[in-house]
């Protein structure tokens, strides 16, 4: 079974702090994704990566950056956390790209981040 783990289940930070959210997958997947989930808005893509050291902006990248130094690890960074970044953050990985078909995503348990 594919396992996607996230570093924290719950996190509370203060405005202006730098925040690191870590995601690790154990199935040698090429593709990794970061989403945020807010009530009524569904899942929105922040950043994704199709290879090590490669990153692509999603629909809402502002205020975020990412790092993919190793294939299994994809980090989301909030350079200076703000209250509007309070949300559930979900990491996912997939073996194939969505455009090629057969690209089911496996999600981690999520990190509920609160920025005070």
């Amino acid at each position, binding site marked *: 079974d594919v396992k996607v783990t996230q570093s924290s289940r719950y996190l509370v930070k203060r405005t202006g702090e730098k925040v690191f959210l870590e995601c690790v997958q154990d199935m040698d997947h090429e593709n990794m994704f970061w989403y945020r989930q807010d009530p009524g808005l569904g899942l929105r893509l922040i950043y994704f990566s199709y290879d090590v050291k490669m990153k692509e902006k999603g629909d809402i990248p502002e205020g975020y950056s990412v790092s993919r130094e190793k294939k299994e690890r994809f980090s989301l960074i909030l350079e200076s956390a703000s209250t509007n970044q309070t949300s559930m953050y979900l990491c996912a990985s997939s073996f194939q790209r969505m455009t090629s078909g057969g690209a*089911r995503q496996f999600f981690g348990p999520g990190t509920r981040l609160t920025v005070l």
Partner: protein
Amino acid sequence: GQQVMQIPQYQHVQEGEDFTTYCNSSTTLSNIQWYKQRPGGHPVFLIQLVKSGEVKKQKRLTFQFGEAKKNSSLHITATQTTDVGTYFCATDKLIFGTGTRLQVFP
């Protein structure tokens, strides 16, 4: 850019009743996926549809992909309390619908 609408937003049904959620895209899709998220859980993949007019079944769940490949539906026959959760569609552009939250009353 591609826009996705999913309806309804909420659905409350009596156990045993049927349920359907619809997903509509502004652009033609190469494929569409469906996910289920239980309360407090994370999205779990259900199925992917690729072909125009495709219909797939998983026990009481029936998934359809429209002929024009711009819309899709998920139908649950005779709902059970275990069906409770939010159902999302996801497009080939990594855009998720806003989800339909299903509540089933015993």
